[in-house]
């Protein structure tokens, strides 16, 4: 039997297609927090991170070395401070962004306007939108990042830690109420849409202002007296205990004052959706159980 040259060529083409198939299958696909599918042909090598929490999570996923640019305030871990900046909290330099020749952009959904997103889409670079609302979301972000970067995801110490912490602190019915104070003048808290509430519910706490209509509701002293929380957690600036936290000691009508449950925490441990939130979780759960141990009858619910 003799092959005609044409069919030989066809065979060759088919073979070639078959050979290239595994390559096409190797393309990476993940679903981001906005529900869109992000597809990469190859592992991301040059990543632009458009938010401090994304930078922190990329480092945690072992991809810190591949970040080519980030934005202002990306200050953790230490190495992140030396990364080139291409924008601030409300601005983004698109020219600088094009210059770094990224193959993946990771943006924070709430931190980027519709207009900017349209412009970014026009660049043709794949974009992953990160918008973690729960601790599982943070965990999934870390897995996605590892996958997009093509680094092996099993046996990752950070993911193992996450797994253990989430198993140790399942969400449970609230036994006590908490007022989370993020500022003093005016008094501000966070409502139920923020990720801190996931931490609270895993520690058996209920945020007294969870139902407030705005994300960062403005309150006054009287509203705290009326809400009468069992626990007050304040996050000021950085690690220091804000001086205004002890102002509450004047109001001995508030249960938290009688319980001596006025605590300060670094906001980065509770408000940033990164592995550091597990430290915040451990700390808050410790205070919650302390409250219960010292005075089992102190709880309002």
């Amino acid at each position: 039997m003799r092959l005609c040259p044409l069919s030989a060529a066809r065979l060759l083409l088919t073979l070639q297609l078959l050979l290239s198939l595994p390559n096409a299958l190797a393309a990476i696909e993940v679903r981001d927090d906005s529900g869109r599918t992000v597809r990469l042909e190859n592992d991301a090598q040059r990543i632009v991170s458009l938010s401090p929490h994304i930078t922190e999570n990329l480092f945690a996923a072992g991809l810190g070395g591949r970040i080519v640019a980030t934005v202002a305030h990306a200050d953790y871990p230490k190495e992140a401070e030396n990364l080139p900046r291409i924008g601030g909290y409300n601005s983004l330099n698109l020219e600088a962004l094009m210059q770094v020749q990224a193959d993946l952009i990771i943006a924070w959904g709430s931190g980027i306007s519709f207009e900017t997103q349209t412009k970014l889409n026009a660049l043709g670079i794949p974009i992953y939108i990160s918008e973690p609302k729960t601790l599982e979301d943070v965990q999934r972000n870390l897995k996605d990042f590892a996958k997009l970067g093509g680094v092996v995801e099993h046996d990752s110490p950070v993911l193992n830690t996450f797994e253990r912490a989430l198993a140790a602190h399942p969400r449970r019915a609230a036994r006590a109420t908490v007022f989370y104070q993020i500022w003093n003048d005016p008094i501000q808290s966070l409502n139920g849409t923020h990720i801190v509430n996931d931490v609270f519910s895993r520690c058996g706490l209920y945020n007294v202002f969870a139902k407030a209509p705005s994300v960062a509701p403005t309150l006054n002293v009287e509203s705290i007296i009326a809400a009468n929380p069992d626990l007050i957690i304040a996050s000021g600036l950085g690690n220091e205990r804000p001086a205004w936290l002890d102002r509450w000691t004047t109001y001995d009508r508030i249960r938290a004052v009688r319980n001596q449950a006025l605590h300060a925490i670094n906001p980065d441990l509770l408000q940033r959706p990164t592995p550091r939130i597990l430290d915040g979780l451990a700390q808050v759960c410790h205070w919650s159980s302390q409250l219960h141990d010292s005075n089992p009858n102190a709880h309002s619910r």
Partner: protein
Amino acid sequence: MWITKRAQPLTLLILIALLVVVSISALLIGTVNIPLSALFDASDYDHHSARFIVLELRLPRVLLAGLVGAILALGGVVMQALFRNPLADPSLIGVTAGASLGASLVIVLFSTTGIGLMSLTAVSMGAFSGGLAASYFVYRLARRGSEFSVSTMLLAGIAITALAGSLGNLMDFFADNAALRQISLWRMGGLDSANSERVTVVAVPALLLIASALRHRDALNVMLLGDSQARYLGINVSQVRNALIIAVAIAVCTSVAMGGTIAFIGLIVPHMARLMFGPGHIRLIPVATVLGALLLICADTIARTVIAPLELPAGVITALLGVPFFLYLLNRGTSHV
């Protein structure tokens, strides 16, 4: 004016009575429901905390709102007369923008949250000095020797406001995360930080402003005709103007430093008073003072109760309350300027 001369003293008395009634009601409403029995009956379980809430939380706040409202309204009356311009208000001489820049500078450069003298934070000191510096600048620019140009002062005020505003934005740009948050929250400001010390600090310049406005009430009437007319009538124009501008600048700077920026009252309340009582300052000064205090106390009480336990910015309510009333007055057809 649509209140006859004969009815005016009575109307003023009614306004004062209204101010007293509104202030007392403001003491009795709030997020925590306080029955009168708890307030006066010492044997009541909640007696102690009820007294505390009314006397230590609500009373200073009502007083501060009243003082700030009075300062802004009276400042508007004086400014509109001095500049012979119906659009003048206290923020026109750069006070508000200067105060905002001063606060930003202190926050960014000293990154301080510490408490200063008498519960006046370093930030409110910065705001006070910033506002004073800006108004001094504007005033110097408008004065050449003994001559003083109203239009130069208005334009210089606009220029200094713009300059302070853009410098403030520049500070935002260089601020780190923490300072940025502190700056934006300071700008939102509010009257919740009221305490007896702050009330005292605002009360002194407020009383000085009322006193100096009343003292120069006749001069203000004559100066509406123009500086030269006033001079012919034997008024030391530059001395009166200096005294009044200094009194307004100090009072408004203090109120901005203690209660944040509240727009609208300084512009609209003087016109309300004028529409009702005519342009004579002997009546305008007390009426605007009472109306300003009344409006801000009402607005602040609504702001802290309408969506309790949350709070709205008082400035939102002042406009919502004041504008319909103001438009009603305007629509009565009398020319007022």
